[in-house]
């Protein structure tokens, strides 16, 4: 897979950052270890330690922050695996932090246990100072005693002699400066090795003057830039025995005695050495603390980063597994999870991939099977829909599973299979199929595997004769349902009946027609020969008898002719004609006889019709005649003829207002010898029906108490029957 440039760059930057961070952290660890082992090297190594640690810490901190930010964002977005990732990070961080913090606590305690020698040094310093002061005080006492010995000389010495006397006294006492002041602090004279005497004599300090004026001596160790420390002693001098004497102040400076100075320096050196040692110890602690903090931070952040890294390594396959599971749940089986590792999780991922591969394979097989089933179903539906036989399939609970188009046509019901609805319930909404449903019920209850039965049902097209064959559907010894195949054999039975009647008619015509003419001729001969010879009474009997014979023979002849016509099926003479003309001719014929009883209505133009004109005329004659006679022998019914073109057919309705036809007879009105008339042969409508059939047309009867209505439908174009 080719990566996008930005993705490649990001990856490169991430790898480079990881390398730099790891190297910096590792180098920082090494340098810290070296510097802790040898503290003298820390000075030189410290900048590098700081740099590498800072780089390492920054990279670690940034990486951890980025990881944490991403994790929190995932957690808030509710992404799969985020909670687990969060929990694992918490666990790993706790596992890493607890030992680090415990070790840190103890290490800090150990580092804080430094040498507490500072108090001892202060104590020694205090003791040394006290000792030094004691020795210095002894020296001061001696100096002061010696100074008071000069009191009488200096208190009364004239001003011009003061400098000389002071010079002698200073040299005699080993001082570095002798100065004489009056009691207000103004200088009288000075002999000094500390500084050259100035033009303007310096007055004595106010503090010294005040103390002297209160009758106290002044002595203090003062600092000196060159001599480090000098002893300043001032005393009041006054010669009480001389009247010339005045109150003056003698201020002197002495160097610290060499022995004391040496001792002081030794003590001072020792103190400072110890202070330096303690200070460096504390700095060592500070440096160690810094090193420890850096180590702690590096360890802590490394542990945190490792926690994130380990958790991501651990949860990534789980996240991928969750994604894969969602894909599988969504029906996507062709997205295997990338193989990450060879550990247990890798094995799990591999197993999952194998599983979805199998699922994909199974799913494809299932889809193929479904497609095959759908194809077979479609094919079966096609076959069933093209079957002329009705097919009904029930499940084992007698619920309708399948019904084909032919079954609906035969049963004259638009039945759709409804899941869970038994056939009996469907039959309640479709009364036409009730006989069939009852028959099925009884056969199913009889536990026969196969059965056949002829049924009669009444539809809107009249009584239909069905021949049903049923069988149980058994799979692996279990009853899975029932299948019923039935055919509408009404036409077949009718054709069989017609054929039978035709045969009967032909034989009757043949057998009866031949003797009728001799009988009639014989009767005529008898009357002509014997009537004149007979008496009037006997002649009248003979005349009636022969007349009866002749009339009955005529009747029989007509009947035989009718039979003959029925049995005979002359070939159709197909021509194209205008049906309106034929209708008008036939109507005019009857209008001449019954002008008020025939009414012809032609709705719209009628297209030309292909057919046998004579047969059509015969059909119309038969039906109009039947209509006129439908009120019985004594009365003439009104007949209305309506014709109109409907699509590619001609529809003719011939309705009368006669007595109508009984419902019982209505079903078989088109069968031979079905008639309502006392003298009818019952062949008229049968002949009409046969002629209509020859023209591929249809005829139906609707009858009520107020008359009957025959509806003819003839196709405009004739198609020869096969």
């Amino acid at each position, binding site marked *: 897979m080719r990566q996008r440039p930005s993705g490649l760059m990001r990856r490169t930057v991430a790898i480079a950052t990881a390398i730099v961070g790891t190297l910096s952290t590792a180098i920082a660890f090494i340098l810290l270890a070296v510097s802790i082992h040898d503290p003298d090297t820390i000075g030189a190594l410290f900048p590098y330690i700081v740099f590498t640690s800072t780089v390492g810490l920054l990279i670690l901190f940034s990486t951890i922050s980025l990881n944490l930010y991403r994790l929190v964002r995932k957690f808030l977005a509710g992404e799969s695996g985020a909670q687990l990732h969060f929990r694992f990070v918490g666990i790993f961080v706790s596992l890493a932090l607890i030992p680090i913090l415990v070790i840190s606590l103890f290490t800090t305690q150990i580092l804080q246990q430094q040498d507490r020698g500072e108090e001892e040094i202060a104590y020694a310093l205090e003791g040394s100072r006290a000792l030094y002061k004691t020795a210095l005080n002894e020296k001061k006492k001696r100096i002061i005693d010696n100074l008071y010995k000069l009191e009488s000389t200096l208190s009364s010495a004239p001003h011009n002699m003061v400098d000389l006397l002071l010079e002698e006294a200073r040299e005699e006492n080993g001082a570095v400066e002798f100065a004489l002041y009056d009691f207000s602090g103004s200088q009288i004279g000075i002999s000094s090795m500390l500084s050259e005497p100035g033009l303007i004599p310096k007055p004595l300090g106010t503090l010294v003057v005040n103390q002297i004026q209160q009758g106290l001596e002044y002595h203090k160790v003062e*600092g000196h830039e060159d001599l480090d420390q000098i002893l300043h002693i001032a005393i009041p001098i006054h010669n009480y025995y001389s009247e010339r004497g005045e109150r003056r102040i003698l201020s002197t400076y002495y160097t610290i005695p060499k022995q004391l100075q040496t001792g002081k320096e030794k003590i001072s050196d020792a103190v400072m050495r110890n*202070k330096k040692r303690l200070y460096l110890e504390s700095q060592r602690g500070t440096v160690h603390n*810094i090193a420890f903090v850096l180590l702690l931070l590096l360890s802590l952040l490394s542990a945190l980063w490792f926690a994130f890294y380990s958790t991501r390594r651990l949860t990534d396959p789980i996240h991928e597994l969750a994604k894969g599971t969602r894909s599988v749940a969504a029906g996507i089986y062709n997205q295997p999870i990338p193989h990450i590792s060879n550990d247990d999780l890798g094995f799990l991922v591999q197993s999952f991939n194998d599983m979805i591969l199998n699922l994909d394979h199974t799913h494809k097989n299932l889809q193929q099977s479904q497609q095959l089933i759908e194809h077979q179903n479609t094919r079966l539906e096609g076959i069933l829909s093209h079957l002329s036989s009705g097919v009904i399939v029930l499940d084992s609970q007698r619920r309708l599973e399948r019904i084909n188009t032919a079954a609906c046509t035969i049963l004259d019901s638009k039945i759709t299979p409804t899941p869970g609805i038994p056939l009996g319930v469907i039959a309640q909404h479709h009364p036409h199929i009730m006989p069939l449903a009852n028959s099925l019920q009884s056969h199913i209850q009889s536990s026969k595997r196969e059965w056949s039965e002829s049924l009669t049902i009444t539809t809107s097209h009249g009584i239909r004769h069905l021949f049903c064959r049923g069988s149980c559907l058994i799979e692996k010894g279990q009853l899975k349902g029932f299948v019923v195949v039935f055919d509408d054999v009404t036409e077949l039975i009718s054709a069989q009946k017609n054929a039978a009647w035709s045969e009967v008619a032909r034989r009757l015509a043949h057998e009866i027609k031949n003797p009728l003419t001799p009988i009639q001729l014989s009767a005529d001969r008898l009357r002509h020969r014997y009537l004149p010879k007979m008496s009037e009474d006997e002649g009248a009997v003979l005349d009636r008898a022969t007349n009866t014979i002749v009339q009955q023979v005529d009747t029989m002849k007509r009947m035989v002719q009718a039979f003959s016509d029925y049995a005979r099926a002359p070939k159709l003479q197909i021509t194209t004609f205008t049906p309106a003309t034929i209708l008008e001719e036939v109507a005019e014929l009857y209008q001449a006889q019954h002008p008020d009883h025939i009414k012809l209505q032609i709705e719209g133009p009628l297209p030309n019709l292909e057919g046998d004109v004579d047969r059509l005329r015969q059909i119309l004659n038969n039906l109009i005649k039947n209509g006129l006679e439908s009120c019985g022998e004594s009365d003439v019914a009104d007949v209305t003829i309506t014709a109109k073109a409907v699509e590619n057919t001609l529809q003719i309705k011939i309705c009368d207002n006669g007595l109508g036809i009984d419902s019982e007879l209505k079903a078989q009105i088109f069968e031979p010898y079905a008639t309502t008339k006392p003298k009818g042969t019952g062949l008229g409508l049968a002949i009409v029906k046969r002629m209509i059939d020859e023209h591929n047309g249809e005829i139906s009867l609707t009858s009520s108490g107020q008359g009957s209505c025959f509806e003819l439908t003839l196709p405009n174009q004739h198609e020869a029957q096969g």
Partner: protein
Amino acid sequence: MRSELSLLSLLLTITLLWTTSPDTYAEIVVTHPEIRETTDHYMVNAEFSYTMGKSVVDALKNGIPLIFVAEYIVEEVAPFWATNPVIQQREHSFVLSYREFTNRYYLISLDNNSHGAYGTIEEALNKMMVRHDAMIIDKSLLSDDKSYLVKMRSSIDSKALPGLIRPYVYTPYLWPEWKLDSGWHTIKIEQ
């Protein structure tokens, strides 16, 4: 990406604020540098202002002597791609120490071994402050057709410090109170 940059900016700001804390501030500044010309010489004068931080004074009071070095270099100005050749250079070094017994600060010049004891650190630092005629440049060393610079600076001698103290001086960005280096101050010699 923007949030990541914000995070880095925040870290940088915290670091800068930490390193520039005003409580722990020390510095050495070159003040009033000048070159005085005589008939045969150029005399370099300089003043250095020393401000010691608490940590430095603490180290001093705990027996750590501090050596301050004032350096002076005369360089010939070379083209920008070349290093300036050094014509003359000089160093003045002072050792500043403290003794608790006497509570006094001691300053020793390593050039002439002169020394002084001072009651306060300011007195001692003031003693180091002024350098009159710190460097005398003989005019015969200089060419009229060339330019010359005098560079001067004062700093603490980190190498003379104990190893455990050196980290502070080596990483002054972390310890501003140990930033004891004035940096080079340059003056052009006007011939």
